[in-house]
């Protein structure tokens, strides 16, 4: 009986609720409709340059050092633009959003930036999966988008390569995509062979989109040099916390060099497992956490002798005449007591800074920032712009190339890719210091072999 009473009561309430809900839904949809209309009108207005503020939306995982460095570097670029009279006479404003490194969160914040805030330019995205998660929406909305963090070539080949018209508003000004990075890495492998006689290479890669090129094409590229062979390959799940089995396998295969491509938090464990066990090979490749200027402290110095490739070369080498002024401006603003790490911009910082200034220059050439009516002019201007950034020369591949709208690699007189610097941790008194060891024209020190080999 009691139960039945409850049921009746419950269902009555539900009935009331249902009426309430219907009314609410009606009101809400009317509201939504109005907002959508307002949004459309706003979009036309701002895209047409109706307001006199040029809004830049920056996307990155700002709780990570990489994302924070990028956000701060974008602030520096905006400050610089403001000092120089803005973009096309408009004042400049930076709206920075945290993607949390997750495609769904990135989609939400991107829709807000484009749909509600009416940004005139999007810059950023660090995780390749995030870039690929928002790319269709961004292509649909035509807002210019400059990729400054993620390097998966499929972002370009699977989109621009299939339907250029649809994706032409999206470009990458850095880093060079991982196909080209793999070629650079193979050149570096030959360099190590010249220097130390290393012959056997092992490739250990994160099981993630960005390492695809290193798993698929790097082995063949390395073996193009007939002195070199790839003796061991494996991929590591992102939640790996015990790296002994991987390193044991590499040692069993007589590797002289392990090239690891690692972007997640386990990198510090990887490094200390290698150093404390004194595994008999050099540690090369790309370690995203290893690019942090604070990595020495985080690993208690076990990162000594490990290297990573990173665009911007960690801010220790004068790549162009803009490198050092940028790094100094960053340090003045963001390094010191009470400031959160990173104490240098890190690679995405270089690229976000360069990307924003690159776009400002292209907009001056195009004479417009109105992407709704003049997108073609803007895209043409970006493709024709040659810009010297803090991380190197920026010019983009054209529509008919393999990587449309993607950053061109720079090559030295020997045809070696040169905008692919490699840095190594060296000893400096009680602490550690980052030195650029490759390519030779940018090197600040020579590559050192771990003392236990």
């Amino acid at each position, binding site marked *: 009986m009691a139960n039945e009473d409850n049921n009746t009561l419950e269902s009555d309430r539900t009935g009331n609720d249902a009426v309430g809900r219907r009314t609410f839904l009606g009101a809400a949809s009317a509201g939504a409709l109005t907002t959508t209309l307002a949004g459309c009108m706003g979009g036309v207005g701002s895209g047409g340059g109706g307001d006199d503020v040029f809004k830049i939306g920056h996307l990155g995982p700002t*709780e*990570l*050092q990489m994302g924070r460095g990028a956000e701060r570097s974008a602030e520096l670029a905006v400050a610089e633009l403001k000092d120089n009279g803005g973009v096309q006479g408009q004042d400049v404003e930076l709206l920075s959003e945290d993607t949390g490194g997750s495609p769904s969160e990135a989609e939400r914040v991107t829709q807000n930036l484009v749909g509600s805030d009416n940004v005139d330019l999007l810059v950023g995205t660090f995780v390749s999966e995030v870039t690929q998660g928002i790319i269709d929406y961004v292509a649909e909305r035509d807002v210019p988008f400059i990729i400054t963090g993620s390097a998966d070539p499929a972002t370009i080949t699977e989109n621009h390569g299939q339907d250029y018209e649809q994706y032409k508003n999206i470009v990458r000004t850095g880093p060079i995509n991982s196909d080209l990075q793999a070629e650079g890495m193979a050149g570096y492998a030959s360099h190590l062979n010249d220097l130390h006689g290393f012959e056997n290479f092992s490739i250990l890669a994160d*099981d993630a989109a960005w390492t695809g090129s290193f798993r698929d094409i790097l082995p063949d590229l390395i073996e193009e040099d007939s002195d070199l062979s790839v003796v061991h390959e*494996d*991929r*590591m*799940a992102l*939640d*790996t*916390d*015990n790296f*002994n*089995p*991987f*390193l*044991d*396998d590499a*040692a*069993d295969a007589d590797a002289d060099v392990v090239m690891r491509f690692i972007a997640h*938090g*386990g990198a*510090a*464990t990887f*490094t*200390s497992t290698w150093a*404390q*066990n*004194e*595994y008999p090979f050099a540690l090369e490749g790309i370690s995203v*956490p290893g690019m*942090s200027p*604070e990595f020495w*402290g*985080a*690993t*208690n110095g*076990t990162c000594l002798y490990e290297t990573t490739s990173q665009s911007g070369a960690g801010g220790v080498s004068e790549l162009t005449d803009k490198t050092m002024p940028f790094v100094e401006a960053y340090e003045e603003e963001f390094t010191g007591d009470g400031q*959160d*790490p990173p104490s240098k911009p890190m690679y995405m910082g270089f690229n976000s800074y360069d990307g924003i200034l690159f776009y400002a220059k292209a907009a001056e050439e195009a004479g417009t920032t109105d992407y709704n009516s003049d997108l073609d002019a803007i895209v043409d201007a970006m493709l024709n712009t040659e810009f010297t950034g803090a991380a190197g020369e920026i010019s983009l591949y054209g529509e008919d190339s393999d990587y449309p709208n993607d950053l061109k690699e720079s090559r030295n007189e020997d045809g070696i890719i040169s905008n692919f610097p490699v840095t190594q941790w060296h000893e400096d008194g009680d602490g550690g210091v980052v030195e650029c060891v490759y390519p030779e024209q940018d090197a600040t020190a020579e590559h050192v072999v771990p003392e236990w080999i």
Partner: protein
Amino acid sequence: MISAVYALIAIGFTMIFGVGGVLNLAHGALIMIGAFTYLAATSAAIPPFAGFLLAVVVTAAASYALYAGLVKYIEDNIVITFLATVVVALLLTELVIIQFGSAPSQLLPVISGTIYLEAVGTRIRYVQLLAFVVSWIAIGALWYYVTKTDEGRSILATSMSTRGAELTGVDLQKVKSRTWLIAGAFAGIAGVFIGTLQSTSPQMWLSPLALAFIIVVIGGIGSIKGSVIAAYLIGYLETASVEILGPSFQGVLSLVVLVAILLLKPNGLFGRELVHE
């Protein structure tokens, strides 16, 4: 080698459950406290060994404080205790992020150095050996304590039957406090070694806690012997998975065994062996 460390975690977890009926989900957070205490101590130039002792003491104290300050008042309601300990764990995670940042760091090993076992093609760090030895000493001491001393036997008695223990004159509050202290000290030891061998980060507590859960379920909830055996079973299964299937499949076989145990022997291998309700 690291199985012994996992056994420490699981024993602490299962003792608290056995004695008080409390599922302490903040147990993983205690591991984190141990690791970060050690990190703070060694970065303040305290020698590693002293830092290790300090970490164990601080973690035991934190565990006791958790019991005396919170769990004591709510332990009769399983759901509230369960939720409250989750909240404590998340709160501690946030505090650690604020204090130390979210990037993982590496601990200074208590002793450094390594040996190369050429026959099996692997390397063992001294700190791994130390983790093994210290964990077994701790487990042995606990075993002696709960089987040979009156104080310890009262813990065992309480986990068999609360009422029976009370009737024989056991002070329940004292027993519970002692249990939390021991569990905390074990978590502190485990924290330093896990933080050294794996990584020290605000998320470091999650996977040891999950493993402890699996170990306790396989070994039988409340059983110390079961925890040790299950920890080794899991350890060997993980090593076997790495050998047979490759490093990416580390956890697969243990999950298969977990499912099998849940289906065939829901009380675990040694479940409820000592309980006489």
